[in-house]
Structures are given as C-alpha cells and as structure tokens.
C-alpha cells in the first residue's frame, strides 16, 4: 500500500456531527460524503495519478504530498498553537456553522503562518452567505474559486490542482547537474518544499501548464544555486546556513516562458557568523544577530553584499565576523529589495 510521507494540513472550522464523532464524520455537503471520505478519495486519486506516470512506489512516497485533516473542530480549535499552523495549508470554513462570528477566526489569523500561503475555501448551503476573506487581509491567505462552494463536485474540482500542480512542478524540476554529493543531497531534499511553493503560486496566479513548468524550472535552478552557496559556506563548526536573505520567494520568480531569465550572474555575497557565544551578547546585540539569521555559534548567514550589511557588521564589531565572497546565482535576484 503506497502512502505519502508528507502531508499538508486541512483545518475545518465546522462542528463535528455529535458527541463521540469527530470532524472526520462531518458531511460538508447535503447528501455528500464525509470529509474523511472526500480527502481519502483525493489522496487515493493523487497516488493513482503518480502511478499512471510510471513512478516507482518509493518515489511517490518520498516526493509526493497528500492532504491530512487536522483533528480539530470549532469546539477544539482554540487548542491549536502557532507552531501547529506551520503545516496548515487549507482552512475550510463552514459559513453556516460560523455565521457572522469571528472569535475563532480572529484567534486563527494571529497564528497563521506568514511564510507559507494558506487557502481559504468556504462552504455554505446558500451562496449568498457573507464571506470571511476580508478578515484575513494583510495575510498570505487566498480564497477559493468560487469564493463560496455549495456542492461536493466543485470542492473536489478545487482540490484537484493541489495534486496536479504539485505533480507538474516536481516532475518539471531537473535532476541536479554533476556536483559534490552534499550539494546534490541538499538540492534533492529541498525539492518537495520548492514544488509545494510552485504549486501554491500556480494555484494563486491560475497559471497554465507551461507557466507552471517554467516557474518550477526556475525555482529549481535557484534552489540548486543556493545549495551550492550552502556547500561553499558550511563548515564543520557551522553546519547550519541561513539563506533566506538571498532566496527569492517562489511567488516572485517570473513565470512567463518568453522572459530570458535563465542566465546566471556573478553576485557578491557576505557570510556572517558569530565571533562570541550568543549568551555573552547584550539583548540588543542578540536581537540584531538573530534578525540577521544567526541563531547561534553553529549558524552562518548569507546576505547580499550591500552597504546596510556592512554597516551592521561594523556596529557589531567583535561580535560578528563578515567575509565577502562571490558566486553565480540566477539573474532574478539582482533586483532584490534592500533589507
């Protein structure tokens, strides 16, 4: 029996049917299947689609991604903490159960991950119900199309791209070119997460198949380049490397096929690491170094070579050591905003 190793969370803001039953037993649509059955079908169909492509079971398990229903409903959603939301991609709101109440939604919006995209399908028996999408303004939360879903077939159709787009993204990503094994390993391990981000971008921007493939390839190219930077910077005493400052979010990577963005360009970078243990820093110094991505002595952070970085390094003289180096990165990064 093939099953995924990786799942994205679905949180349903709805009531469980009755005492002793869970949200899995909830039937979102009149006369339809339970939420458990709908998601089981989705996961099964997703695996079958990989099998049709001829993928080996071990690759499907390692690289594929399914949907997992979080074991919470409206009565227990307050038990969720911020770290739990890191893995929640879909928040399914039952407008008939929530009505105009925003207590739960207010709690959730404070905890939603700001790094990952979250999708907000809303269901109701009446399409004219008030949507809650405006309660998530300013957050990376995206409504479904249509905004309010009234039947199971539409919901399942909306779910399909979560598998298809992900599959398209991960199958489009090229295998790593020859390089050192550590770089190749880091690249291969990062692919599923990058494919997830490409999938999110594809759904949000309603990308065509060609555009999704282009985006996936460019994101993969960036990831490989970053793996090489990581291999260059990583040392035995500093195995953790912070690269987010130079990583272009996937949603910002151009996806139009005709743009000439495949060129690599030499970029000047700065590697920062601690010269003293973090416990010996003042609170202000600690806040600055953590903000730079240096969480301890075993961390190194890579930033673009910009005056602001050097000014910060100068102000932390004796605390942080900075080393300049250059490498080739995809051209898109040249236009990064200042810190």
């Amino acid at each position: 029996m093939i099953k995924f190793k990786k799942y994205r969370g679905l949180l349903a803001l709805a009531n469980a049917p009755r005492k002793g039953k869970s949200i899995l037993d909830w039937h979102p649509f009149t006369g339809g299947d339970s939420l458990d059955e709908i998601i089981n079908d989705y996961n099964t169909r997703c695996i079958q689609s990989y099998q049709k492509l001829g993928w080996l079971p071990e690759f499907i398990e390692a690289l594929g991604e399914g949907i997992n229903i979080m074991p919470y409903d409206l009565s227990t959603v307050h038990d969720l903490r911020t770290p739990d939301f890191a893995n929640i991609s879909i928040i399914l709101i039952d407008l008939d159960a929530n009505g105009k109440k925003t207590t739960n939604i207010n709690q959730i919006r404070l905890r939603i991950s700001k790094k990952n995209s979250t999708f907000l399908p809303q269901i109701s028996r009446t399409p004219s119900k008030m949507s809650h999408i405006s309660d998530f303004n300013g957050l990376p939360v995206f409504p479904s199309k249509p905004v309010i879903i009234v039947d199971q077939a539409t919901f399942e159709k909306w779910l399909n791209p979560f598998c298809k787009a992900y599959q398209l993204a991960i199958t489009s990503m090229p295998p790593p070119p020859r390089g050192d094994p550590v770089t190749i390993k880091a690249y291969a391990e990062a692919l599923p997460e990058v494919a997830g981000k490409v999938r999110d971008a594809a759904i949000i921007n309603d990308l065509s198949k060609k555009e999704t493939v282009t985006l996936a390839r460019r994101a993969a190219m960036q990831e490989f380049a970053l793996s090489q930077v990581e291999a260059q910077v990583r040392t035995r005493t500093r195995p953790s490397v912070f690269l987010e400052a130079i990583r272009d979010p996937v949603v910002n990577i151009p996806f139009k096929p005709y743009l000439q963005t495949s060129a690599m360009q030499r970029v000047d970078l700065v590697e920062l690491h601690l010269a003293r243990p973090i416990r010996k820093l003042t609170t202000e110094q600690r806040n600055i170094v953590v903000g730079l991505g240096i969480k301890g002595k075993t961390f190194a952070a890579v930033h673009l070579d910009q005056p602001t970085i050097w000014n910060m390094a100068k102000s932390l003289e004796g605390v942080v050591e900075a080393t300049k180096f250059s490498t080739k990165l995809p051209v898109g990064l040249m236009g990064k905003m200042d810190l």
Partner: protein
Amino acid sequence: MTDHANVQRKSLIAYLDSFVFVKNGYSVWIHLIPFAIAALLLLILSVPTDNLLLNLVEVLQRPSWIWLPAGLLTAVAAAVYIVTVTVQIRQAYLWSKYNLRRTIGTSLTYIFLCTLMAYVVLLSVSSHEKTTLGDIWACLLVAVLSLTGIGWLGPSSWVKSISVKSPNYMNSHRSVKKLTEILQCVRTKSSSDKQDVEDFLSDAENLRSSIETNLQLEPTWAKYNLQIASSELYTLRDKINEYFPTNNDLAVKDFAAACKYQKQHQYQEFIETLKNLSKYWSEWEWQEDPNSGAS
C-alpha cells in the same frame, strides 16, 4: 507416516479437539487420579462382605428421605466437576469459540467412562439382571465424587511434575478484555490521548507476549492460528509506534480515527492489521453507525 496422512491426522485431532479437551493429552492425565480414586472407592464399597455398593444401590432404588442428600451430593459433585472442567478449558484455549461444546463433550465423556467403570464393577458383584435407576445413580454418584478430584492440588501438581503442561491463557483473556474496553472507549471519542495509546500498546504487547509464551506448550496442529495472531499483534505494535508516537500530540489524536477505520490513506496498514485481528476477536470489529452524521 506420509505428509498427507500427517495432515489428515492433524485435522482429525483438531476437529476432535473442538468437541473434547484434547491438546497434549493434559486432560487425560489429569483425570487419571480421579479415576484411580473412583476405583479405590469401588473397591472399598464392594469388597467387604457387607457390600456397601449394593446397599447404596438398594437405598437409591426406592424413594426415601435419603434421596435428598444423595441428590444434592450428586448435583453438587457434578456441578463442581463441570465448573472445574470449564475453568480448565477456558485457561487452556485462547479463543472461546468451541468452549461450550468442549466442556459438555469433555465432562460427559469422562462422567460416562467413570460411571461405566463403576457399573462394570457393580455388575460383577451383584446378581441383578435388569439395570435399575438405583444402579445408575449409585455408579454416577461414585463417578462424579471421584471426578471432582481434577480440581485438587495433588493431581494437577503430579501432572505438572511429569512435564505434562497445559497452556494458560488467563493473562491473555485479561489483556483481550482490556483491549476491548480501550477500543470501545476510544471509538466513542472524537480524538484520543496519549494514555489511550500507551494503554493499548501495553495490553497488545502483553497479549502477544502471553501467546508467545504459551505457544511452546501447544501441540503443532494447534499453533497455526496462534502464530498468525501473534504475528499480527507484533505488526500492530510496530504500526502504533510508527504512526502514533506518544511524543507527537497530533499523531496521538488520530489514534481514535484510525480505530474507527478513518484516514484509511494514512493508516491503512494499522487498519488492515486491526481488521485481521478482528477475525480472531470479533468484539474488536468496528461497525459504523448508519446514522453517523450525514447532514
């Protein structure tokens, strides 16, 4: 003996075992001393010139006040013997499917044999030509009184001392009962907690361990289903450790769903193993409530 004949013999013994407590012959050995006691009683009653056995027969021939104590003694002795056989059979078998007919078959067989032995002795010392109620009752009384000896410490110690052991599944029965209670409780909840998983894991491991220990005492022909059950419990333990590690709160909550055969995609192997074990313990089967919450 050819393989085919061997298989046939094993099947025949297994079939016979569903009617009478056979196993490794433990039942026969443990009845040896009571039969010896019965023989001793018959000797004591029938050898003296004032033949007590015949006197007993005569007394039981006609209705009198002596029927009351005699009837009570016969009934109580028979009940004690049958209860002892019931307990021994329950201890010796993991699954109770044929226990009732084993109890009836075993107790009737030995009561009949012992009564027959007493009757043969009676025939040899009496000049009766016709078998009367008194004859049968007297023989039955001697037989059931002697047979209560299977419950005494002496006969069972002696049998153990000559290395004839019977499996003892009392711990297994307790574990099965606890597992059933946990499953029933968890299936009424919307989500499970760490204690549910730990208790279930502990009792599943106890059950498996108890079966493994007793497997050595089982005859070859009786091992097949026990080995499968033990293997499935081993798999169940592994899957619980893999899918519901107690240091992962989210995973632990899903244990209740998996016990209700939900989230089949993620917990298929655990669900399949639980379903396989339900073939051996039907009370573990999950029956979905038809009014389960359809809107």
